[in-house]
């Protein structure tokens, strides 16, 4: 190829080389920084007020039991120090058209009512008398209507709950701000972006536990899900990190962890969600660390601790106070005082049991958020369960990172996100002049 032809091709290359990452959880953050650190411009969209996604709400990671805030903080530094990443929070993709090298994306943002002048001093939160359900703690406690999403939130900027807008409380919040950061007039905005490739990092949500009717999730406050357990054990959670029974605030020492609640079940999610076995073993460790006399039962079909994670299983199963019961419980009944009683068959001993517990944790399956959140937007081929799984020959400009492509743990999500960043870069670089102009 002659030099002049080469120049011509470069001149007629993709209309945009910007990479759009949708979703600011661990996968989206990773894909964004990896792509940006190779020199590409990246726009990172997040639907909630802060980055971090599910990982930010975890108390600790398995198997090393280290704190997610540490790894997230490193990534936030990478974002802060990189001028080619633009983060847009409270934003969703409304529509998407075009092809690789030339996508037109319409984005809609919700109002935060707080602008970039915010110093996160917290005066607004003190001024507000209205409390709203705390989404970070899954509604297990409440926060002031002017709140910081959580202590490690990026960006460190307050949010005002839309419920109080128009009330006298909103005026109090505005007047309390010494920096002119509260803007009660802020409205929804819609704008267009032009990008060359899209990475979907839309993540997951827990399966709706109320649909597993035999497990009585909505009948007892002492039957919680695995994400609520993370908050219950976290120092910035509703109980300050003490694992207490939600019904009466007493220590939860007799704890049951039920695996495959909504997973591997043709009545619910037919697939294995991959993380729950390890997550539940981690929960058992949380309880044991707090209460030396605790007794924990893990109800399982089979333990799926793959590769190096087997070592964590060995460690947990060596604890005489953590008991593994090979049984998928039939149902949970409630005693007159509300104590949950798990009923089922121990498949190794054939004992038909009915055992009372202080706290029951359902290890809920992972459902792709993309399934319900952005159904109208073309995101590439979905498998039977709604995960984005591109087929050979599909539109190369779109790829999936993290759990949007299938159930993964954090480390595998990070690997998948790095791969997605590479695919996006490859897609942009291989755009020929013909393809980019239609």
């Amino acid at each position: 190829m002659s030099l002049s032809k080469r120049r011509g091709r470069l001149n007629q290359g993709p209309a945009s080389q910007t990479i759009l990452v949708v979703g600011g959880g661990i996968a989206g953050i990773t894909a964004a920084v990896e792509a940006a650190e190779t020199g590409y411009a990246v726009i990172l969209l997040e639907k909630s007020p802060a980055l971090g996604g599910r990982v930010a709400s975890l108390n600790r990671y398995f198997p090393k039991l280290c704190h997610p805030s540490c790894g997230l903080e490193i990534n936030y530094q990478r974002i802060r120090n990189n001028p080619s990443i633009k983060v847009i929070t409270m934003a969703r993709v409304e529509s998407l058209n075009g092809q690789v090298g030339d996508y037109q994306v319409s984005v809609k943002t919700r109002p935060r009512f707080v602008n970039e002048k915010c110093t996160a001093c917290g005066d607004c939160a003190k001024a507000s008398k209205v409390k709203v359900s705390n989404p970070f703690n899954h509604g297990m406690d409440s926060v002031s209507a002017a709140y910081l999403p959580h202590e490690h939130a990026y960006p460190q900027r307050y949010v005002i709950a839309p419920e109080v807008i128009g009330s006298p409380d909103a005026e109090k919040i505005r007047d309390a701000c010494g920096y002119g950061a509260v803007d009660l007039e802020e409205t929804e905005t819609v704008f267009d972006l032009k990008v060359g490739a899209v990475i979907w990092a839309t993540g997951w949500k827990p399966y709706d536990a109320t649909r597993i009717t035999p497990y009585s999730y909505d009948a007892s406050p002492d039957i919680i899900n695995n994400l609520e357990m993370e908050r219950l054990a976290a120092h910035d959670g509703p109980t300050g990190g003490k694992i207490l029974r939600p019904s009466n605030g007493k220590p939860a020492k007799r704890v049951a962890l039920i695996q495959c609640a909504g997973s591997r079940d043709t009545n619910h999610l037919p697939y294995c969600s991959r993380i729950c076995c390890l997550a539940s073993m981690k929960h058992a460790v949380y309880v044991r660390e707090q209460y030396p006399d605790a007794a924990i039962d893990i109800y399982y079909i089979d333990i799926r601790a793959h590769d190096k994670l087997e070592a964590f299983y060995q460690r947990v199963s060596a604890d005489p106070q953590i008991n593994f019961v090979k049984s998928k419980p039939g149902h949970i009944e409630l005693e007159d005082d509300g104590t949950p009683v798990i009923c089922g068959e121990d498949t190794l001993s054939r004992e038909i049991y009915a055992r009372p517990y202080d706290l029951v944790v359902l290890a809920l399956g992972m459902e792709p958020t993309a399934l319900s959140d952005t159904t109208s937007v073309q995101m590439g081929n979905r498998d039977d369960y709604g995960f984005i799984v591109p087929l050979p020959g599909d539109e190369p400009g779109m790829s999936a990172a993290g759990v949007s492509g299938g159930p993964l743990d954090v480390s595998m999500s990070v690997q998948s996100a790095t791969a997605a960043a590479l695919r996006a870069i490859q897609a942009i670089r291989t755009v020929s002049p013909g393809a980019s102009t239609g």
Partner: protein
Amino acid sequence: MATPLPDSSQKYDLGFARWVYENVKGGDQLSMCMQCGACSGSCPIGTDMDHGPRKLIMMIRAGMKDTVLRSNTLWNCTSCYRCTVRCPRGIPVTSIVQGLAAKAVSLGYADEVVTSRFARSFWWSVTHFGRTDERLVTAKFYFSFGLAEGIKRGLGNLKIALDLILKGRMHLGLPHKVSDTGGLQAILEKAAEIEARDQLGEDKS
């Protein structure tokens, strides 16, 4: 093609699972079972079963033909369908259990199971009156153990019977009947005819 019924002289007959697969309604779903225990754990009378559905399926796979066909699990099932509804693999557990009960009758295993005698008494009442008469069903069941045993068991329940009568929960007259007993017989004859035809069809295939 139907496999012949395996030889019962062996305790473990590896052809039994194949036979159930081909001859029992729902049996072709046996291979889906992952032995999670949701069926046995959900069973409202699980503690009154010798094996329960999960172990029954495991024994079918292991080829324990005699143990399976003699199991009281086949007869204690109340057809509440909880196991079928909750099975995470969509196995029609109730159908398999009931299908095996029917096979246990036709192969002569059923009489060894006490509960199957109760099923026969129940069937007798339904086919004669179109209704279940608790007194006659109970009496017929008790006397199936012999005259002396029947009287003994009957007297043992005397207090319960008197209490039921005093509370108006047991009537004393003739058994209740459906008005059209001729119609009932016609239905039963037709059902027998269909069953015989289906059986013939299965044998031919």
